[in-house]
């Protein structure tokens, strides 16, 4: 398979580019922020995503989806990133779908995701840095379980219909196994969600579970064997976040290069200064390399290749590095106007920071690559 988009994927990209650009440009984020919107995204727009078929990209055709892959999901995510569009697409249509796929829970939740009714949130992180370990407990109680503990950085966690929760049902905190993944309805008793506004104006919740009772059939996959669906979720989420980061980095670069061609100082366009040209060209190179890493991870995931795991970490780390550079250089090369709230470049910087932390930052993933390679 060549490492570039085929004709159908290019068509989908163009469709997504038009759709997101028209319906959810950066101005949309600014409007949501200025109106202090408490949801964090636009539900009507989420419905439109569904009408476009986007929410079913990773859902099989037999279940009413498009039966496409991570390359296609990434194409949409990149446009979401480029436009800084607040959307539950990554958590719901990508990560949650990957976790639910092939389990008994799919039948229950896929229709809502397909129709744009359902929003899913991922209760995975337990501390301010993403880690592989799970310490939150789920004790057996009757036919079901009682969940106790806390999660944080749960995007849309305060308004989601479905929470995907990783909890420990066996073993000790350090063990990789012994984890079970639960599909928890948002209205479960004993569950408190405290929304926190983040730097990029998105909202993530801190969740506390105080003996939250769930049925046995809330288990995604098998009890004690949640590592498999959790890994599916993480691989999809990490790859998707990489694609979105790539969009953020690319959007920031476009804005910056555009500015270099328009701003005059010393009687010349600042883009004619070699010091800036070289930095812009270096930035371009970093983003091209990041783009390849993302596409590689997507293709390997779609091919269910054993090498996908490393490729996913390379993609997340590389986009973290490249996009961080892009937004930093973006603000610097805009000069003073780059520091103003009125101008958009700062929005890119804030979004990049949040996405960089999501599902593990560049250091976390570089470390994973190192371990995988035996050092």
């Amino acid at each position: 398979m060549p490492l570039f988009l085929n004709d159908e994927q290019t068509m989908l990209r163009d469709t997504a580019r038009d759709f997101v650009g028209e319906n959810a440009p950066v101005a949309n984020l600014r409007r949501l922020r200025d109106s202090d919107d408490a949801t964090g995204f636009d539900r009507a727009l989420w419905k439109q995503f569904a009408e476009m078929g986007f929410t079913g990209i990773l859902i099989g055709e037999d279940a009413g989806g498009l039966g496409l892959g991570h390359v296609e999901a990434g194409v949409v995510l990149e446009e979401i990133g480029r436009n800084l569009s607040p959307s539950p697409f990554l958590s719901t249509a990508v990560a949650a779908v990957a976790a639910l796929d092939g389990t008994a829970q799919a039948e229950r939740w896929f229709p809502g995701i397909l129709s744009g009714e359902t929003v899913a949130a991922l209760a995975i992180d337990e501390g301010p840095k993403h880690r592989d370990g799970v310490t939150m407990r789920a004790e057996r109680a009757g036919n079901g379980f009682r969940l106790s503990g806390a999660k944080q950085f749960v995007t849309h966690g305060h308004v989601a219909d479905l929470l995907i929760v990783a909890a420990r049902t066996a073993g000790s905190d350090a063990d990789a196994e012994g984890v079970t993944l639960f599909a928890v309805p948002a209205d479960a008793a004993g569950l408190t969600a405290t929304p926190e506004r983040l730097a990029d104006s998105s909202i993530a919740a801190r969740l506390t579970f105080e003996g939250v009772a769930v049925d046995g059939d809330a288990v995604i996959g098998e009890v004690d064997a949640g590592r498999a669906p959790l890994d599916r979720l993480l691989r999809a989420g990490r790859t998707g976040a990489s694609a979105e980061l790539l969009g953020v980095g690319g959007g920031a670069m476009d804005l910056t290069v555009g500015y270099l061609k328009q701003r005059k100082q010393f009687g010349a366009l600042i883009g004619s200064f070699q010091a800036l040209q070289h930095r812009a060209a270096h930035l371009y190179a970093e983003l091209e390399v990041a783009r390849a890493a993302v596409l590689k991870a997507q293709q390997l995931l779609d091919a269910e290749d054993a090498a996908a795991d490393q490729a996913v970490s390379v993609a997340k780390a590389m986009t973290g590095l490249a996009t961080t550079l892009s937004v930093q250089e973006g603000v610097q090369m805009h000069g003073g106007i780059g520091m103003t709230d009125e101008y958009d470049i700062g929005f890119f910087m804030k979004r990049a920071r949040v996405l960089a932390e999501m599902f593990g930052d560049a250091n976390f993933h570089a470390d994973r690559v190192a371990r995988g390679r035996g050092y």
Partner: protein
Amino acid sequence: MSDLDTFREETRAWLEANCPPEMRAPIVSEKDVVWGGRDQSRLTAPQKTWLDRMAARGWTVPDWPKKYGGGGLSAAETKLLREEMARIKARSPLNSFGISMLGPALLKYGTEAQKLEHLPKIARGEIRWCQGYSEPNAGSDLASLATSAEDAGDHFIVNGQKVWTSYADQADWIFCLVRTDKTTKQGGISFVLFDMASPGVSTKPILLISGYSPFCETFFDDVKVPKANLVGDLNKGWDVAKYLLGHEREMISGMGLSGGGDALVEGALATVGVDAEGRLADPLLRAQIALYEVRALAFAAQSERFIDELKAGQAHPAQPSMMKYYGTELNKARHELSMAAGGSDAVEWESERSGGGRAARAWLRTKANSIEGGTSEIQLNIVAKRILELPG
């Protein structure tokens, strides 16, 4: 089974049967690289066997047309052949400026007679080529070159000096930029080929910081060059030169890929050791290597993407500049890390255990990566102007 699957199976079987075991070992020194040329006495028996067998199939240049000594393979087949060679760690049977630089330029700009004359010899490794571009006062500003070619009826008379001519002292022929019109800059350059054994050609080696001297000053004193050896039109050599440079940059960018991180990691583990958790005991070195590896693995994907796009005619023509820039900076970073990992062992210059200073010399050699074939600064200029379309 698809045609490609069949091709893969047959290729695998053929390589298995024909690639000598000695040619499946990693390249350690310059001596392991086969450059070909009139003087084949330099080749070991396995090198010669491997070259001849691959050349007989046209697989030294798998995607060139068969009539020019190539394999006539499609892009997909070529990729597959490379994969199968990589699978058994087969060495490249032949390295040459003919394959990576002159060949593509001749395929595009050469006359049929020139193609039939030169390409098959390149494919079989019979003629070793060198590149006569740079001059003492024409480096980055290559178009200011002064070596002149005077019209003398059916031939030119070439006078002047080149510098940095890699392997000029071992090359059989040179592809050379000469000035045929002094009144304009780019528009007065022509591209000619001639035999290094021609009367009036002489070379003088230049010693590098690595202690090696594969580079030369090259002097031309009334050298007679037949007009049939002009490639492209008179005074239009700059187009050929630029096209060829694109291929040179493409080739050099491959350095970012050479070796990957394996040797680096092994070297670091051997010198630094591991901590209680089995991780490299120097945490900062470990972090630096890990971040390097992220970039190297991402660049490997980018190289694959670049080749795929190139084959499909989708790559921006200035993209080789980006690849050259990134690949060479990455390669330099790898060698800098390998020196850091090697510690005092790596700075030994002559000892037997250091293989005659192999690590140190290789490290020093890589410092030229971001100079040769056009400096990193020049590549960034090209990306800025031609891809990002920045002004001035």
